[in-house]
């Protein structure tokens, strides 16, 4: 009797425990299913974007063929479209932006992690992160109203005069000074990608073990040598990640570029000349594009940008893998 009355509550407790375990198993399964569905959703969206871009661009790609990639002319009147000028503009502006932003970004990161007096560290760090929070349209407006007139009246005439008659450079910096053009948008892009590169580089610099740096200082290395030989080699994968993130933003940036690039479907040797990028062309022309071939050509531009971004990210991954393999071996 006493045994039975003892057993009763314990079996009830066991049942309750069982029920709880079952409930946990169920919520766990549900949770696993949800997370898996979210992960699959990303693949579905990516696949859907790729398929719809391809379907939308089929008409243009089939009627122009490979010459779509190599033709500079973009003529809505005769419906002859070529993507060379936007591709050129996209690559050149992004490349110049990265060339400018990477050294400055690494410089800021080195200063913040190695040299900066403590009280200054936070304000500068926060300022850099605030720079990333500014909407791109603000950069565009600032670029058009403040930066472009400044370039046009102060910087460009000076550079044109300095390089006048110097072979190569004179055509690279040929006038007239419009103020807006390839170089202007590259400079704006450099400012826009700078915070991405800086904050990631700063974060990875913080991961360098103090013992490594201290040993280097201990054997008499200068700050430059420590940065060059210890910090940067130790963190190059992270730096690469920051650069790729910045490059991705530079390639796809639309509004700020549209404001300051000049939107001309031409390839000129001069960096001061107006040009266009893929995203700027789409933003400018999609609303009024009538005619299926015109719309399809714009979608093709989107597909090309998609492919370029994909290739660059793939190349970055590949490089990181090779570095990983080498350091791992």
């Amino acid at each position, binding site marked *: 009797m006493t045994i039975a009355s003892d057993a009763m509550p314990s079996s009830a407790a066991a049942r309750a425990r069982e029920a709880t375990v079952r409930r946990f198993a169920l919520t766990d399964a549900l949770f696993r299913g949800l997370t898996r569905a979210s992960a699959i959703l990303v693949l579905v969206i990516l696949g859907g974007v790729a398929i719809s871009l391809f379907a939308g661009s089929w008409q243009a790609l089939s009627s122009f063929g490979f010459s779509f990639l190599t033709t500079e002319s973009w003529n809505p009147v005769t419906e002859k479209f070529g993507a060379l000028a936007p591709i050129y503009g996209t690559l050149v502006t992004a490349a110049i932006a990265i060339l400018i932003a990477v050294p400055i970004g690494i410089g800021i990161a080195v200063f913040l992690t190695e040299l900066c007096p403590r009280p200054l560290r936070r304000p500068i760090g926060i300022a850099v992160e605030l720079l990333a929070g500014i909407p791109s349209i603000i950069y565009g407006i600032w670029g058009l109203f403040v930066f472009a007139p400044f370039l046009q009246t102060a910087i460009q005439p000076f550079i044109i005069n300095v390089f006048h008659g110097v072979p190569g450079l004179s055509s690279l910096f040929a006038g007239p000074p419009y103020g807006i053009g390839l170089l202007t948008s590259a400079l704006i892009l450099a400012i826009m990608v700078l915070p991405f590169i800086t904050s990631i580089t700063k974060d990875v610099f913080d991961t360098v073990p103090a013992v490594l740096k201290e040993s280097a200082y201990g054997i008499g290395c200068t700050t430059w040598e420590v940065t060059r030989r210890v910090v940067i080699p130790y963190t190059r994968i992270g730096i690469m990640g920051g650069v790729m993130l910045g490059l991705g933003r530079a390639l796809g940036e639309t509004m700020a570029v549209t404001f300051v690039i000049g*939107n001309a479907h031409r390839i000129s040797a001069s960096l001061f000349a107006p040009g266009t990028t893929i995203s700027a062309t789409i933003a400018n022309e999609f609303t009024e594009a009538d005619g299926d071939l015109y719309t399809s050509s714009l979608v093709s531009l989107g597909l090309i940008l998609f492919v370029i971004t994909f290739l660059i990210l793939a190349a970055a991954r590949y490089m990181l893998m090779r570095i990983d393999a080498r350091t791992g071996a």
Partner: protein
Amino acid sequence: MRHFIRSAAVAIAMAAATTTLTLSAALAADISGAGATFPYPIYAKWADTYKKDTGVGLNYQSIGSGGGIKQIKAKTVTFGASDAPLKGDELEATGLAQFPMVMGGIVPVVNLEGIKPGELVLDGPTLADIFLGKITSWDDEAIKKLNPDVKLPSQAIAVVHRSDGSGTTFNFTYYLGDVSADWKEKVGVDKAVEWPVGIGAKGNEGVANNVSQTGGAIGYVEYAYAKQNKLTHTDMINKDGKKVEPTAAAFSAAAANADWSSQPGYGVILANEPGAESWPMTAATWILLYKKPDDAATTGEALKFFAWAYDKGDEMAGELDYVPMPEKVVESVKAMWAKEVVGDDGKPLYSAM
């Protein structure tokens, strides 16, 4: 507590149901349209006043002429609006009726030190040569000849054009093509063209900004933008060889001198019209709606709105620097509605009151 929650839930559900009901009732009465950006300010103003007068709302999305044509073809809106008229065979094929609603003028604007609005005069061929890149400096002989009294600087001409497809560009290039065979052959006429020179800027306001910031610049904008931004417009030599200023009177003169019945769907481009007073770059904007609409009631409402705008909207148009259509054209359009736009039963949706 539970009871309270349930009754609260019921109350919320009922409130939601009534709002959906009232919302859908309101939506049914609203006229929807989409298209050209150029007439958007005046359509918005008319719609606002009309709603106060009659309670019938109009929802107009200024997504661009191309978008407006696409939307009306997809039948997602009651009417489409376009700055470039559809051709006769396209109207025939789609069963759309087309009529002009309001007009405006396009003016060349320049940024030259010491030159005030209206001091500089250009003619069609010179304007075409500037935009072709043949004339590259402000002290070119062709410009000097037209402006013997103006001191022209030896400054490079910076051409500014629209970067987005636009009805303004269509009308502007139509005029250049009309006066210059070279332009017609090399560049052509469209809402977006392959510009031989210059920088592109988005929208009328973009061109206005770029011109006012770039020394030696020339661009083209709707008259209202030139006026509001206090830009330096130029005068033009028109088809009759007379010098004209861009004024509402000059735009009206061009419209009055046009032969509206010459094109199906009133698709007359008002560029380079004859007449001593005519401004050469006048432009109309058109409405497109179905002659046999699926939703006859809403199309009937839309026609009532357009009739109201023709009758009572002239003053509002003037305030915003648009030019109302001539009376003769309005009468003809109304007669066309009464004859051609019919419901399912074959009865006209609009009757002259």
